[in-house]
């Protein structure tokens, strides 16, 4: 089946392929290193290496677009790549227009979703990280809170939305509240794990030097836990970005999730497809930023 599709790939309109190929390069930016003048052979080798890293992802994307084009041809209602592309160009030519609260550019929608994530996430970090330190440092605290966390963590954050609506009486903080709830668990658990995993050697160094508690925290515990904390942050920002779309669908207002729902009501399916790509792209960027951040703060121990 997939073979057939792959064979039919060239059917997709050529102009499409070219345009999406350039787009794919935007999606995964290729780091082009400054090439010092080197021998022909080395340059050739580099070119091959370059091709090896670039060609497979492009092929994958072409395959996706091919399948998409095929499906859209067979099914009425699902817009094909070409239609979506022209619509996307139109949308992104003016992402920041504003015609009242229910009709705003896609840029505004994305930004307000990001803002909610940032606020909810910020509160979660402010509460979750100190909490994680306490749970990791004191067994009493962890035996006190672990059962509660185990009970609440598997609950979909959306189940908390009504509580948020009830308490805050408004949609916007309620959506932020769900983000807070879904972000806080990975933050607490990873920080606590990091604190528990601080090598005994480092703590012995602190004890032998007789460092005061404040120094132990800033010079030893914090740097040692940082990589774990960043893992927690990465996990929670991932789920936060998943949850915000669903939460906004339910609460309305301005936001990418609400926009998807709105376009569904307007039956503008190509906008929904565009939204899917945009959501994916933003999620990818968030993840990449945090991976880079984590790399910066991960220390080689040997």
């Amino acid at each position, binding site marked *: 089946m997939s073979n057939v599709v792959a064979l039919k790939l060239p059917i997709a309109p050529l102009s499409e392929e070219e345009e999406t190929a350039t787009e794919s390069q935007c999606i995964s930016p290729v780091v082009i290193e400054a090439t010092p003048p080197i021998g022909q052979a080395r340059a050739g080798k580099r070119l091959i290496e370059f091709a090896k890293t670039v060609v497979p992802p492009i092929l994958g994307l072409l395959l996706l677009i091919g399948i998409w084009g095929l499906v859209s041809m067979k099914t009425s209602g699902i817009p094909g790549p070409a239609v979506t592309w022209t619509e996307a160009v139109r949308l992104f030519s003016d992402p920041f227009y504003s015609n009242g609260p229910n009709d705003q550019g896609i840029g505004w929608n994305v930004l307000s979703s990001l803002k909610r994530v940032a606020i909810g996430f910020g509160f979660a970090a402010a509460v979750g990280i100190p909490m994680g330190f306490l749970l990791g440092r004191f067994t009493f605290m962890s035996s006190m809170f672990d059962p509660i966390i185990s009970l609440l963590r598997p609950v979909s954050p959306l189940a908390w939305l009504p509580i948020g609506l009830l308490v805050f009486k408004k949609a916007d903080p309620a959506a932020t509240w769900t983000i807070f709830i879904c972000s806080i668990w990975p933050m607490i658990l990873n920080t606590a794990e990091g604190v528990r995993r601080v090598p005994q050697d*480092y703590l*012995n160094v602190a004890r*032998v*030097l007789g460092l005061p508690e404040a*120094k132990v925290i800033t*010079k030893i515990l914090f*740097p040692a836990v940082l990589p774990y904390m960043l893992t927690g942050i990465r996990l929670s920002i991932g789920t936060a970005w998943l949850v915000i779309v669903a939460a906004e669908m339910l609460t309305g207002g301005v936001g990418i999730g609400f926009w998807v729902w709105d376009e569904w009501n307007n039956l503008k399916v190509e906008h929904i497809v565009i939204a899917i790509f945009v959501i994916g792209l933003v999620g990818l960027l968030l993840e990449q930023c945090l991976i880079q951040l984590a790399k910066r703060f991960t*220390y*080689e*121990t040997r």
Partner: protein
Amino acid sequence: MMKPMVKIESVGQSFQTKQGKFIALRDIDLTVAKGEVVTLIGHSGCGKSTLLNLIAGLTLPTSGVLLCDNREIAGPGPDRAVVFQNHSLLPWMTCFENVMLGVERVFGAAEKKEKLRARVEAALAMVHMDHALHKYPHEVSGGMKQRVGIARAFAMEPKILLMDEPFGALDALTRASLQDELLGVMEKTGATTVMVTHDVDEAVLLSDRIVMMTNGPAATIGEILSVALPRPRDRLALAHDATFVECRGIVLEFLYRKQLKKAA
């Protein structure tokens, strides 16, 4: 007899394990004089690290008392610097900052920043690491890390220096050159030192006295050998020195005849 720096009086140490009480050490009596270099030698698992940790104050004895400079050892402190077997440098700090951490703690209250920096630089220069002040531990070799660990301990000017197999993880060549370096530093500073090793040559080369421990469980001090070699000592000259060879023979005899460990 010089002033005693460390006094260990009928110390015993046992651990609670799943199989019940495990007696690691019993009836340890030892006095280390000021400026003396003592090595602890014995087969693996006999309790050398346990004894060193007791002097460091990282663990407390189940019986008996330990005194350092006539005060009971109730916990770790910067007057007893430890060089750990695995260097234990903090990976997020440069070599300079690692040494500074201890220096700041000991002298920070009394001295200015400039003076502290000078101390750190001097300590690193002493172990020939002044070329790598601002490198991170993962950027230097294993031997260099160990030197920084030694510099960190010396820079604190501790009353007593404790070393747990400081060169255990190094290759023979590096180990020899670090031993020579350490020998020089110890002679220069006159530091009181207790060092764990399982290398007989190292023990004889560096120590004034060698404490030989019996096999565990319930290990204790088997014999104590005084090494009457004049300082400064030189590795090459000593290789055929009669006293050196004799000391070496006594320790080997103890380890491999009297305390031969059956292969488990």
